[in-house]
């Protein structure tokens, strides 16, 4: 199909074909009668769309817009107020948030340290208990347990002979 006819198909959606265009189309259709129905429906739909009435616009459309343009100062000042509010309050809020985050971090570190210390103490007690667990249980043996536990092992040399005798 010639290019100008292809363009005419689309252009018929926005304007009525001229007499010259119709004459050229007729001339082309004489050699391509199988295309006639397609062209008729295309041009028909084009005409219908061109003639489709536009939805009405309310009479106050333009005045409403112009009135709204006169009001931007109010909207602008409201926006400015909000902006000033955030500018005023954002730095202290930011500082407060940073302080709270630091406090939470410190508290968490202290808690973790305390739990670690607690677990270490428990391990030490468990080791001490394990050390005496091999001896026959006697309340007399445990009477000086705390005193002995506090003794510095480095300061008191181990009595190897006594240990061997006990074993």
């Amino acid at each position: 199909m010639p290019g100008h006819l292809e363009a005419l198909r689309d252009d018929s959606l926005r304007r009525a074909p001229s007499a010259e265009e119709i004459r050229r189309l007729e001339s082309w259709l004489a050699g391509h009668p199988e295309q006639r129905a397609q062209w008729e429906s295309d041009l028909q739909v084009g005409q219908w769309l061109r003639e489709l009435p536009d939805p009405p616009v309310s009479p106050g459309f333009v005045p409403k817009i112009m009135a709204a343009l006169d009001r931007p100062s109010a909207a602008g000042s409201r926006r400015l107020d909000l902006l000033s509010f955030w500018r005023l309050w954002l730095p202290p809020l930011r500082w407060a948030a940073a302080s709270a985050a630091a406090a939470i971090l410190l508290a968490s570190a202290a808690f973790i340290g305390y739990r670690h210390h607690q677990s270490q103490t428990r391990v030490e007690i468990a080791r001490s208990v394990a050390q005496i667990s091999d001896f026959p249980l006697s309340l007399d043996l445990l009477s000086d347990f705390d005193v002995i536990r506090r003794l510095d092992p480095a300061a008191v040399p181990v009595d190897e002979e006594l240990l061997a005798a006990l074993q």
Partner: protein
Amino acid sequence: MRQRLAGVGLATMGSVPDPDAELMLRAKRGDRAAFTLLVEKYQQPIVSLVRRTLRDPDEAEDIAQNVFLQAFKSAGRYRPTARFATWLYTIARNLCLNELRRRARHPADPLDSAAPGDTGRPEVQNPDPHALLAPQALLRRELDAAIELALAGLPEIQRSALLLLRDRQLPYEDIAQILDTTVPATKSLIHRARETLKQQLKPYLRSGDWPRPIRLPDSTNPQL
């Protein structure tokens, strides 16, 4: 949206002078009268586009007003290298798409159903009551309603392409720019939209009651 508007603003318009661009430049300098002229000129095509996209008369008018307000507020970013109509239609389509997205997020507002009070029939501007009584006018009214319904059933981008094409001043390049696509893609959208409309309006095409655009002699399809 700002990026797209900026993109439109930098587009080349060629050597064809655009009187609307001149008015917009005056409006940019604070000339309200120039902007009023632009609103008066474009109120109908913008309302038509928005109304047929959103299918809610009240909301459509609010959005259409926002289009002009947005244009005025964005006047500082407007460059006269872009056709004013292209710029304005781009704003209109962006606001429509925003509204459609908002409706999609809040399905309580039906996306494609007509608003209360909207019967789906087109409202004829300045209707003549005597003309409406004539059988031909009634037939035409029924046909217009069928066309509106068929248009409403099209995908948004196809419908926009078709509606923008009705504006005689807009070249394909500008329509493509508004739709954020290429010229071949725009032509393809228009072709697909027209084919869908033909399918939807087949009963009217075949009835023979409707006015024909051209009288082609030796028609091989007499039912048309």
